[in-house]
């Protein structure tokens, strides 16, 4: 029984992990919580759905379409909502409000164009579940888990082994110095948003597959936020760990005390975490600039 709970927790965790990493990427670079990530996820999920349904695209193609859409949309978001604030050196809070507004905007646009009916992705997989002994796992959960891990490995490779990755890390330490070193900060930021958007695309499509497609899909970005915080804002592997932890904790709470009081307990746990170890599991201490 508990093995099943573990498996459920891990698969939920992998869903959260991809969201959290997309979220953490932007936080790393620009030091703010990008709530428009949710909106990007929703839009790409719908685009993916259109591709799957009307163009009869197989899973891999749908995911590629989603990555592309997500990436482009995120870059567009950066341009429209965040670039000017950066140029004007506005306070961090403006990024936050801008991102929430953009997120709400995307959600409502989707509602207008698709109405609030919800849609089911066509079935991509032949069999829908796998049985490993006592434990049951759905194929889409397994795929999500595998694709999450793969994407994270690819991301890690990009960040730690490529030139652009090094540039990203440099910019996240210090904007100005990086640009003094000849790094084109704008391009780097666009690249980061593209990556984040791409990840958002993958998570959007999988959320749509697992949980049907509806305009409020993007609100799951809050889970990504929580996971990032637990794992330590500013750390990518922290975000991943935080996500898996969050998934497990949620499943456990539901198992033990039922779904009713789960939000209350999660709130208490979170509050405790924030007070006792605000930098999270793996976070670096980011001081608010004086």
């Amino acid at each position, binding site marked *: 029984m508990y093995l099943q709970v573990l498996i459920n927790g891990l698969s939920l965790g992998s869903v959260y992990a991809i969201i959290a990493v997309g979220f953490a990427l932007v936080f790393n670079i620009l030091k703010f919580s990008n709530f428009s990530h949710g909106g990007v996820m929703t839009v790409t999920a719908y685009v993916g759905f259109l591709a799957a349904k009307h163009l009869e695209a197989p899973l891999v193609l749908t995911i590629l379409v989603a990555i592309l859409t997500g990436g482009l949309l995120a870059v567009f978001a950066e341009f429209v909502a965040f670039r000017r604030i950066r140029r004007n050196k506005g306070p961090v809070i403006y990024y936050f*409000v801008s991102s929430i507004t953009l997120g709400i905007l995307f959600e409502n646009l989707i509602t207008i164009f698709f109405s609030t009916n919800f849609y089911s992705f066509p079935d991509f997989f032949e069999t829908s579940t796998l049985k490993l002994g006592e434990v049951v796992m759905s194929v889409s959960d397994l795929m999500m888990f595998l694709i999450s891990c793969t994407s994270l490995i690819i991301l890690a490779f990009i960040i730690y082994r490529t030139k652009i990755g090094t540039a990203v890390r440099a910019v996240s330490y210090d904007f100005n110095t990086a640009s003094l070193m000849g790094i084109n900060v704008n391009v780097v930021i666009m690249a980061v948003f593209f990556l984040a958007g791409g990840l958002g695309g993958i998570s959007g499509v999988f959320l749509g597959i697992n949980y049907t497609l509806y305009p409020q899909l993007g609100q799951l970005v809050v889970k990504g936020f929580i996971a990032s915080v637990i794992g330590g804002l500013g750390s990518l592997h922290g975000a991943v760990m935080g996500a898996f932890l969050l998934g497990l904790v949620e499943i456990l709470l539901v198992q033990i005390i039922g779904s009713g009081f789960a939000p209350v307990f999660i*709130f*208490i746990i979170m509050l405790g975490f924030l007070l006792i170890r605000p930098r999270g599991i793996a976070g670096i201490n980011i001081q608010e600039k004086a």
Partner: protein
Amino acid sequence: MDFILSIMVFTSITVIAVTGIFVISGLTGLFSLGQAAFMAIGAYVAGVLAVNYHLSFPVAGFVAVLVGLLAGAIVGLPAIRLRRDYIALATFGFGEAIAALLNQSVSITGGAMGLSGIPKKTGIELAVISALICIFIVRNFKYSKFGRQCIALREDELAAKSMGINVTRVKMVAFLLSAAITAYAGVLYAFYTTYVEPAMFVWTKSAEWIIIIYFGGINSLTGAVFAGILLTSLPEVLRFAAEWRVVIYCIVVIFILNFRPSGVFGEYELSFNWFRKWWKHLKEKKGVMR
């Protein structure tokens, strides 16, 4: 006529809630995504006291505001020690926790089925007068020592501390004041619609209020009130554009954040200064003719 009255009442209630948010998120810059929860507390406590214990409207309302204050203290104490981003998360969690509690306590609050049968006591006079009083209170708060301290710590917390401002205490006062005002708005709301349910007080409502503040200008109470009135009563006039309404005001907010970050009203506050000058000007003219 009745219908217009009803819009005016809802608008006044929103204005009250907006003044509350203005104190905490505008002046003090603390992002509270859980303000709707205070409104819920105000509405439910007053409602339950009236329906189950048959307390009179003023008594129930008074107790509800006190409970709101208490809740503000409980949440505020840990929350104000957190970093800016974390405050949003903590208050968000608080909002979710309250919603979950309200849903669970079916015997007292009716749970998801809502609480009905609250006597209708809020009249148009009470609503408008309350709104005016709240505006007056918050205005005086803004121009008082506390208000200036709030603005100082919003801009630069470290500098404020080094000036000798007891940052923790100021934040707490702001938090309590806004909790009380928002709870009062909840009381009025409950006694007008006579039915409340947890789904009315979601975090997206808190986010909307914050957007209203940024639209009007975080330094301008006039802006906040004006934005609140505009964005509540406008939908009625624009019924035909209902779907696009949210999209339009999101786009407007993004524009404002990009090009006029200080908000529509900037630093402007309705005051008697220009009135006085005009009056003086008139008097001088009369004097010349004498």
